């Protein structure tokens, strides 16, 4: 049996997926990136292999992706997270049908990717420079409201009134806007929902640049947030496919690419 790993080193979290040669997921892991992300990635990979009773040299091929992709010398090669995301979404979304558009919200950026039936990227758009409306934004919101990041979805779904309009897209300015709204006596539910709708509006606008025909798939850590998902569906006017584990799609894609690269290598050898 051969094993293949995809290691996605993002700005906020390191995601690792291990598959076998039937493309079955053997194990997956999510761990904070931290400051020593190369060491953290290698440690996490070794810990995962130990859990599965595997040695490092039993890995036939490793592909790294994400911001830290080029620094992981343990990998056989690296691919950009856009290519890896496309392949991962095609695999993870297969049970729902053929995915056309992927929306990914990460720790620091937002992407919209259009793919064809083979998982090849045909067009994509990404936020320029500014990290407005990304995972970081949700992080700061939760901290300001003194609630857990995981609770944002519940607050949103408990909303009894209308969401508040949030005008600032800048994380720094939004912080003071939120403080102002709290001072005016607004409830946390209204604010959380307002933030979600403002992110959703921004994201759908970006995604429109690549087209939104067919099945739309949403992944990245923020896709775990049910409130944000509901707002995205409202903005889009249709249902969105959310995978079971939205954080690991890109790592899954990298592991599938590792598997394919290994097959190519065997063929040409």
């Amino acid at each position, binding site marked *: 049996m051969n094993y293949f790993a995809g290691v996605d080193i993002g700005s906020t979290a390191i995601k690792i997926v291990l598959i076998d040669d039937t493309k079955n997921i053997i194990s997956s892991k999510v761990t904070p990136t931290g400051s020593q992300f190369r060491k953290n990635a290698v440690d996490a990979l070794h810990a995962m292999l130990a859990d599965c009773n595997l040695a490092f040299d039993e890995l036939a091929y490793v592909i790294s992706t994400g*911001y830290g992709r080029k620094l992981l010398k343990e990998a056989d090669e690296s*691919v*950009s997270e*856009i290519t890896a995301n496309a392949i991962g979404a095609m695999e993870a979304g297969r049970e729902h049908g053929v995915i056309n558009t992927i929306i990914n919200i990460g720790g620091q*950026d937002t992407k919209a990717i259009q793919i064809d039936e083979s998982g090849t*990227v045909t*067009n994509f758009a990404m936020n320029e420079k500014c990290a407005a409306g990304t995972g970081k934004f949700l992080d700061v919101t939760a901290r300001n409201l003194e609630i857990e990041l995981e609770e944002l979805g519940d607050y949103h779904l408990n909303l009894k009134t209308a969401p508040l309009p949030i005008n600032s897209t800048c994380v720094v300015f939004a912080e003071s806007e939120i403080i102002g709204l709290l001072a005016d006596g607004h409830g946390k539910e209204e604010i959380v929902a307002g933030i979600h709708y403002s992110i959703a509006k921004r994201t759908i606008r970006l995604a429109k640049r690549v087209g939104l025909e067919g099945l739309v798939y949403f992944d990245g850590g923020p896709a775990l947030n049910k409130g944000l998902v509901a707002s995205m569906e409202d903005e889009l006017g249709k249902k969105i496919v959310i995978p079971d584990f939205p954080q690991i799609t890109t790592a899954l894609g990298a592991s599938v690419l590792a598997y394919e690269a290994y097959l190519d290598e065997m063929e040409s050898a």
Partner: protein
Amino acid sequence: MNRLLMVTSSGWKKEIKVSNDPKTDEKKTAFNLTHQAIEAESMLRRIKDDFPDNPESMNYFYDLYQQVYCEGRSVYDKEKIVGTMCVQVPEELIYAAGGVPVRLCSGFYTDDQHGAEFMPAKSCSLVKATLGMLSNKSTLPFINKVKTVVSPTTCDQKRKAGAIIEEMGYDVYNMELPPLKESEEARLYWQRSIHKFSVSLKEITGNKITKDSLKKAIGKTAAAQKAYRKLHNLRKETPPVLLGKDVFMITNAYFFDKIENWTAAVNKLNEELEQRKEEKFSAAQRRAPRILFTGSPAIFPNLKLPVLIEESGGVIVADENCSSNRMLYDMITVDEWNMSNMVDGIADNYLKPCTCPIFTNNDDRKRKLINMSQEFAVDGVVYQTFSGCQVYSMEQSSITKVLRDEGIPVLLVESDYSPDDMGQLSTRVEAFIESLKAKKRRK
């Protein structure tokens, strides 16, 4: 030394040093310690050292950048330098009047930061950098010598920058350009504008243009263009004989190098590339996706996007840029070698083929991009716009549409001179190159 506190119009308190004895107070920084030199050095090293197999003949250009931008030594001595703000200033007329045109469009981030003082926050890096460079007389070696700046009335930002440059103490010559190029009225308007410039040059350089001097000047630029065209055509080869980052270095050197030396160096390089062609030598991976680069101009040291493309495994085989192809490709045609006919011929050459988005209608640009994509067997187009460059941003959607309708993938990149988006840009460029490779594989 006295210190004065001044409150500026924006309300900031600014400390002004008033020196009684400038000799003791002044500190002149060695050129190689300026931010410009540091910036230039780092990009030059990347261009030279990060790529294997640079042609021997590229050393002429690498050394030239080292001399001018890293060490601050100009190639000129007593020549009468005439600064130009744009590709639409006819060089032939300046040469014929005994002057030397030097293009002032700056690619330095340091200059961009200096220039921000004069312009609104969301304006074009190139215009800001040009102002920044001109405002700081100790920075670039040829700037000290520039007295006159010729500014064609092209985009809003460049036009208004002309007035600011005048306030800095330069003589500014505004050369009037029509907003359309197809109509007969526009052609006549521009011809009059060029005739007027040819007469005014006497006041700028002190020499009158004669029939002979103009004919000689046209010959001089024609020789340079001939060398460029040869290089341009060599880029059609598969496998590619030269990387695009080097072509940008070459065309960019045309901004400030002595034209005869430049032409000789390009001819020498062409010979080496002919050799490469015969040996089937490949300057990039054989299946590297072939890229056409267009949009806001790539100017040293802001070559981050071209370099990223080639570091990610693509190869730039053609460009539609006013710092490169648009500056050198089109040659002057003259019916009769008399003064009036020559000046008209020059005027036509600087208007008709120009595909700058400042023109109201610009279908020429669409046609040119499609033709070039076919001629150079292009796999994808990278379209750069500087944040704040309205005309290129506004043309983005229609250009993208016609290219995609032709089945040519396009990557749009909005960026500026600051290096802080390198990480994000590299992800996008790599993903684009990967998608082109995947598309090629399936063909």
